[in-house]
């Protein structure tokens, strides 16, 4: 759907942004961008949204180079939505419904359609009951959800999220993950930047590892065990589930490749049945 071809960008103060960065996002896929601070994740998202323009290289949307004219950017932003890391940098409206209506009204839609979209977007993020509430009274997590609703109301094909889990407590993170599941199930392509390797491994279809502005690896999340060296080269830790599986294997306990600790715990729990709790030699375990 969206491809970066040898994209190069430096900021005005000559700070490196992206360096010969190439990767692509498939339509309908779930993508996680991994990398240390300053690795270029946000810069990449800003390029994908047309807010930054490459100095060299190019971006292709459905096989067509991005058009940076005013009309071209409008066309791009009808299809691509970006949720910023800090919700206070994104929210304009005094109330939730007002803010969510901002984008659809700019699409030139009539009031009943805008109203319907606002209701639908707020329902997706679970904030219908707070539609008339003032933005300033919301929690950080709720503000993030309003930001997502504001973008969803424009019905983008590709949703970009910059650190959606940052600053959220575990309960809010679970809510956010459930929301991302719902969006993905609805067919929205998602690209998110994150430092949470456990979440990325469990959730994403594809992982893209950035270091110093370069995309040093792109691979299916299921293939992560084969790319641990690249992940570590980018200063990223290995997912906890992978480390646990390795430790269990070293003790002779064979487990199938699972992508979350929850799944592994469920697999190892007594209620999951003796066949799932087999050792490397097939013997059931009393206390896994």
């Amino acid at each position, binding site marked *: 759907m969206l491809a970066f071809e040898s994209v190069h960008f430096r900021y005005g103060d000559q700070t490196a942004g992206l360096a010969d960065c190439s990767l692509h996002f498939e339509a309908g896929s779930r993508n996680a961008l991994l990398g240390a601070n300053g690795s270029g994740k946000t810069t990449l998202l*800003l390029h994908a*949204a047309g*807010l930054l323009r490459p100095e060299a290289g190019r971006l292709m949307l459905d096989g067509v180079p991005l058009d940076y004219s005013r009309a071209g*950017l*409008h066309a791009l*932003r*009808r299809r691509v*939505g*970006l949720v*910023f890391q*800090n919700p*206070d*940098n*994104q*929210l*304009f*409206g*005094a*109330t939730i*419904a*007002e*803010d969510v*209506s*901002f*984008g659809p*009204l*700019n*699409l030139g839609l009539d*009031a009943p359609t*805008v*109203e319907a979209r*606002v209701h639908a977007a707020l329902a997706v993020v679970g904030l219908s009951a707070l539609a*008339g509430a*003032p*933005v*300033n*009274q919301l929690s950080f997590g709720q503000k993030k959800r309003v930001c997502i609703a*504001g*973008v969803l109301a*424009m019905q983008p094909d590709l949703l970009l999220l910059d650190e959606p889990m940052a600053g959220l407590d575990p309960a809010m993170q679970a809510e956010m993950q459930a929301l991302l599941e719902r969006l993905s199930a609805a067919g929205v392509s998602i690209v998110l930047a994150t430092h949470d390797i456990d979440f990325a491994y469990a959730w994403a279809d594809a992982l893209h590892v950035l270091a110093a502005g370069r995309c040093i690896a792109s691979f299916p999340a299921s293939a992560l065990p084969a790319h641990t060296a690249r992940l570590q080269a980018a200063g990223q830790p290995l997912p906890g589930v992978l480390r646990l599986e390795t430790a269990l294997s070293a003790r002779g306990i064979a487990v199938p490749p699972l992508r979350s600790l929850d799944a592994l715990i469920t697999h190892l729990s007594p209620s999951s049945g003796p066949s799932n709790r087999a050792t490397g030699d097939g013997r059931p375990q009393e206390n896994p």
Partner: protein
Amino acid sequence: MWIEALAQRSPWRTVCPFAKAGFALTAGGLAFAGTAPLRVLSVAGVLSLLSVWGAGTPWRAYGRVAAPGLAFLLLSSLTLLVSVQTDAMGALHLIWLPEGGLRLAELGARALAALAALLFLVLSTPLPDLLGMLRRLRVPASLLDLMVLCYRMLFVFAAAWRAVRTAQQARLGGVSLRARWRGLQLITASLAVQVWLRAQALERAAAMRLGEGRLRFLLPVYPTARRDRLLAFAASLALVVMIGWGA
């Protein structure tokens, strides 16, 4: 922000703002047209009672909100009782003006009623609803955009101010007058940079949602607007009759 919080909690928050504004305007008009201070004061009394009993503002909170306005009124009204004159030697003298008492009563009562009318409206109507009303009244868009951004940023920067202030105090920033003064300078400098960065970020965010001109929002809908307006009209009429204007 305190007034806003009270308005958000008001049971009359969902009442159509046009109805509340119409009633407040009528009451303000009555006060302006009235000459008998007691009658004008009774308008102020009715509005205050409505703000407390109807709009659900606690008495103490109402007093705190009204206090700055009342203090200003008191100070400015008292100046009507005195005059400054110079004698032949050029020395300044304060002259007592007994005739200023009546003028003080008239103006003071009117100002009190106007203050009560304003408080009635803002304590029962959050600013977003007032902005929606102003949009329907076709107030210039650039003015409304400015008001919306100021409203949003007021809370954002108040939070930033509190955060920086707390961080300073945690490092003994308020230990002396000199330290407090320096802390104030640093906060101001920090917020000045933040204003600039926020402006850039908001511009980007607006561009992402195709907003390159005026800020457009869906206007709030009040299902009981018709009933509210009728009630406000009836209440306004009752107020006119009660105060006995023209009697």
